[in-house]
């Protein structure tokens, strides 16, 4: 079942970026990663307009460390922040304590702390701000039972909003750290 999912995903990835109609034999690359580089072979290679079908070489990435099946990780709690702030509000302390207890009780449990910001301001500054938020959660978890090897951080900045709107209601939802379980 798991293998089928991986193959399906790989087939979708491979086929989505092949420009030569529906292939009779979809190229299945079990190690397909999240991104595909579309190699250019001169004027005819134009994925933007779907021309130059067969001249488009599609190369898998050399990178292999990200071959994760869809749905990898399981979303746990979400901690929200004020504008341009990485301070964990008191109302989230029970979540931190509870996560800390679980991490102390099960050293196989691993979490990825994903920092996010709202869309306002510059994108790379927001990457740094999202990381600051993820690190704030990491520090808090280390104080309540976690050990360093159980926690990784990742900042998406403003790139992965949860709410699609462009007002304070959406921004409030989007300024967050998502706690993702990557191993248990």
């Amino acid at each position, binding site marked *: 079942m798991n293998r*089928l999912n991986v193959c399906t995903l790989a087939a979708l990835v491979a086929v*989505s970026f092949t420009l030569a109609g529906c292939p009779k034999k979809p190229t299945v690359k079990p190690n397909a990663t999240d991104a595909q580089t579309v190699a250019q072979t001169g004027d005819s290679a134009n994925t933007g*307009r779907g021309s130059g079908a067969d001249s488009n070489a599609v190369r898998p990435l050399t990178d292999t460390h990200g071959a994760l099946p869809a749905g990898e990780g399981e979303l746990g709690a979400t901690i929200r922040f004020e504008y*341009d702030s990485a301070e964990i509000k008191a109302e989230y302390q029970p979540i931190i304590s509870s996560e800390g207890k679980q991490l102390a009780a099960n050293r196989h449990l691993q979490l990825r702390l994903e920092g996010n910001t709202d869309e306002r301001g510059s*994108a*790379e500054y927001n990457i740094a*701000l999202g990381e*600051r938020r993820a690190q704030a959660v990491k520090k808090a978890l280390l104080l309540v039972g976690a050990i360093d090897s159980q926690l990784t951080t990742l900042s998406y900045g403003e*790139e*992965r909003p949860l709410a699609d709107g462009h007002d304070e209601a959406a921004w409030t939802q989007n300024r967050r750290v998502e706690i993702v379980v990557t191993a248990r």
Partner: protein
Amino acid sequence: MNKRVQTVLLACVLYVAGIAAAQAQLTVDITKGNSSPIPIAIVPFSGEGLAVDVAQVVEGDLARSGRFAPLARAAQPQQPTQASQIDWPQWKLVKTDYLAIGRIRADGAGYVIEVELHNVLSGERVLGVSVNATGSGLRLSAHRIADLLYEKLIGVPGAFATRIAYVAVEGPVAARHWRLVVADSDGENPVTIVDSKQPLMSPSWSPDGTQLAYVSFEGRVSSVFVQSIQTGVRDRVSGRAGINGAPAWAPDGRRMALALSQPDGNVDVFVLDLETKALLRVTDDPAIDTEPCFSADGQSLYFTSDRAGRPQIYQIRLAPGERAKRLTFEGSYNARPRLSPDGKMLAVVTQDQGAYRIARVDIATGQSLVLTTGRLDESPTFAPNGQTVIYSARERGRGVLATVAIDSGVVTRITLASGDIRDPAWSPRL
């Protein structure tokens, strides 16, 4: 077996949907015009009927610059292709100051395009040019002609024969995908060079215009890649633990400024030697230091830092023991500096009346002038002629690209038929 067939069918459906999205056309509108654009007419060239309407491309470029008011073809009193055919009184009647006529003829495997620019009031020919074109390069040649006409009448070269890179984001929140696209400066010929289910951001052109650096989150880690636009071959130049972001090339093309995080998550600015891979730490501050860009002489960096509490622009020389000097004092938020081609100005994101807008900052005086009127304007970069800044904006919830003239406030907008476009980067002259 059935499952396999279903999978292939599903794949085909998704494939078709993907192509439809890839074909989504860009549209370009002028949303705010100049008060006194130059009246000009570009009549169809003889020998047209080719795949590209060359005169139309030239006309579109000049119109988009906001500095010209081209006369619509339907309103043109005649369509001469030789100077001897021009009926001057008729052109004076329609109040056209300049008239461009041209001829295209086959030349071996390609074409020669001859264009003449006439001053209608004086009857004098002010420019005659001959441009060679390959069959597939007709649009590029048309942009070159527009550059020459622009230079003749405005006094600075145009920036039409250039390209823009941008990130297109499509799909619902739960199933987004990101494409890094390179298109002509008018949004035509969009070519996707990377397609990912994880975020792509911060494209940056090499000074010679052959490569793009960008940030990719594939594999759920951030990395900086450098990719050849022509061959698609790419190299992960920074894939350290933590943040690898904000790539910006040095003018010499051999070094790259980056924002990298320390194990504690703090982000500082570094310079990577692309040949030796040697990494030079430039800032060491507990605040966020990011979004570096090189000065014109390659000897210092401008960058964003919130070391004073809120993000502001700083400059630091690339020498041991140097301290950063704050450049911006107007407004509570200034970020993402990008240098003008003459090295005298920075385009930045600034907070203005509660909104995020694009401002230009005079480096010598620190004086700031807000150029745009949007609510969520971001990611400014200068055109290679320094006349306009391209940036991303949000209009009715959609991510669009816009350009603003740095002195006249003329705004044009580039929109994708569906989805958002953002993070534009204007190529150098090609």
